């Protein structure tokens, strides 16, 4: 076994799969959008959101979990589940199995989804978060199996289910196996719903293809980070096929809100607050317990979570 996990990824490393800042030195980071320099510690403190232009840089699954969950509360599940390359796939001499090994080494993850249990402001929840650094968070067999097991655990434990997703599209190397994970993950959510447990979906940049056309868009509540690009087909494909110029802001989170596809655009800094408020409402009602020591604001979500 290669030693995937020895090299602990650091937040500030350069990462070709990442639209985050390029680090000119250890102290300053350069915003990928406005190109301004931001003091590195500020950048981390603001959850890798540029304080100047509000650009939400992509997160690794690990960062996401760290930012979202209460400190030390995450218990990861099914870390050993990996794909078995059912097609024995190779493209132009490049073997899928080799690619998986290289990707694992580079990303520090063995698959494009991590799952587990954690707490958000005191509320227990099952969480599944995608790893874009692992083959663009494409949905392969391992992704699907981990997702479904997590949903089944949520049913078993009677916990709400939160997914945080981005994805570049299909895992072509697994062809129809990849496609069928759309049906598999969604079927599991159908069961979750029958048990009256909520699924809250958080869409992050970029979110396309099989993920949006399956579990991520049939949640009870859908939120997206500002500026996140979200759609079925990618903008280049659409331009190429339709030969139409795409309008400004097409497929952004704000565009989806305007077209009725999501419930809320939520800044990263407010996400834990927003989720905890929702978990409060669902937990009280469907999980048969109250957490009256939790004091919520009476006039709803403020513009500034903390």
């Amino acid at each position: 076994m290669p030693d995937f996990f020895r090299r602990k990824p650091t937040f500030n490393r350069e990462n070709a799969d990442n639209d985050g800042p390029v680090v000119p030195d250890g102290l300053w980071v350069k915003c990928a959008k406005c190109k301004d320099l931001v003091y590195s510690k500020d950048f981390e403190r603001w959850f890798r959101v540029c304080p100047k232009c509000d650009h939400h840089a992509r997160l690794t699954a690990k960062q996401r979990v760290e930012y979202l969950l209460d400190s030390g509360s995450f218990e990861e599940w099914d870390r050993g589940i990996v794909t078995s390359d059912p097609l024995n796939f190779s493209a132009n001499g490049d073997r899928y199995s080799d690619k998986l090994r290289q990707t694992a080494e580079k990303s520090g993850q063995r698959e494009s989804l991590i799952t587990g249990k954690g707490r958000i402001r005191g509320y227990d929840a099952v969480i599944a978060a995608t790893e874009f650094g692992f083959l663009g968070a494409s949905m392969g067999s391992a992704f699907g199996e981990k997702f479904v097991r997590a949903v089944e655990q949520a049913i078993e434990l009677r916990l709400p289910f939160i997914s945080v997703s981005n994805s570049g599209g299909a895992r072509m190397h697994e062809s129809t196996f990849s496609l069928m994970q759309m049906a598999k993950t969604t079927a599991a959510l159908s069961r979750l719903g029958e048990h009256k447990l909520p699924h809250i979906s958080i869409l992050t940049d970029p979110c396309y293809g099989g993920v949006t056309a399956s579990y991520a868009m049939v949640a009870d509540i859908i939120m997206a980070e500002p500026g996140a690009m979200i759609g079925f087909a990618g903008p280049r494909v659409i331009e190429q096929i339709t030969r139409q110029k795409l309008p400004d802001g097409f497929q952004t989170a704000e565009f989806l809100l305007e077209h009725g596809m999501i419930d809320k655009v939520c800044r990263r800094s407010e996400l834990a607050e927003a989720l905890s408020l929702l978990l409060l409402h669902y937990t009280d009602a469907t999980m048969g317990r109250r957490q009256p020591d939790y004091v919520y604001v009476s006039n709803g979500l403020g513009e500034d979570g903390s």
Partner: protein
Amino acid sequence: MTATTPAWERVQLARKPERPHSLDYINALISGFVELHGDRRFGDDPAVVTGIGAFNGRTVMVLGHQKGSNTRENLDRNFGMPGPDGYRKALRIFKHAEKFDFPIICFIDTPGADPGLGSEERGQATAIAENLLALASLRVPSVGVVIGEGGSGGALAISVTDRLLMLENSVYAVASPEACAAILWKDSSAAPEAAEALKLTAQDLLEFEIIDEIVPELEPAHEAMDQTIQRTGDVIERHLAEIEAIASDQGIDNLLEVRYQKYRNIGAWVDKQEEMLGELPTPMTASGNPGS
């Protein structure tokens, strides 16, 4: 055709405009077919045909992607690529079937879902996802048949059925060979190699246990249309009778459980947790939430 026919040849056969399309099957197999229209929301998508009729003496709801047999028809039918309105028309029919306990027969034949601007605006991804959700728990028996091209999520959205069949010269994959070649070979002329690699033939998918049966084409379907359609009808009947028997003998909840397990078990993975234990660093935990 033999099992060793190259995948690329299958792709070309599956796409042949002269090949029988959904309405050919429907008109031959469904008595007293009444086409139903519209999603009751926005439009009536001609890339999806649907309706009610009798299949071997029982009332069923049928639907399918509808390609044209020539360029003009294909322009009218958007080459069988549905928009969200097409998927929502299908969803309406699924719910209609459920309300009246009618079984569902789906004919799958699309290059994929429409990738246009309007489709994105009206929620193509949402529409497909909602169909997957609805089909997973639909309380009536369903049979799907890939009769030509099974293209990606656009095909899946009406094929999550109790039994999934494929014509011998049909194909089913997560992406077209051309798209796959363009991305992984950086050369779309490598489509034949990509077709081979994608394992998209009926034979492949039967071996993977993703489909339940192959409807043989003694001659390619477009050269023996009536026989192929009748043979397809016979195979549908056999499967439909089997799942109707499960539903009536063991109850619909049992059929739903079988359906759930069918899709839940698709996937090729191994659990290497054991052998990893020794070499892993400390298990990953959240090391601090700056916001809490």
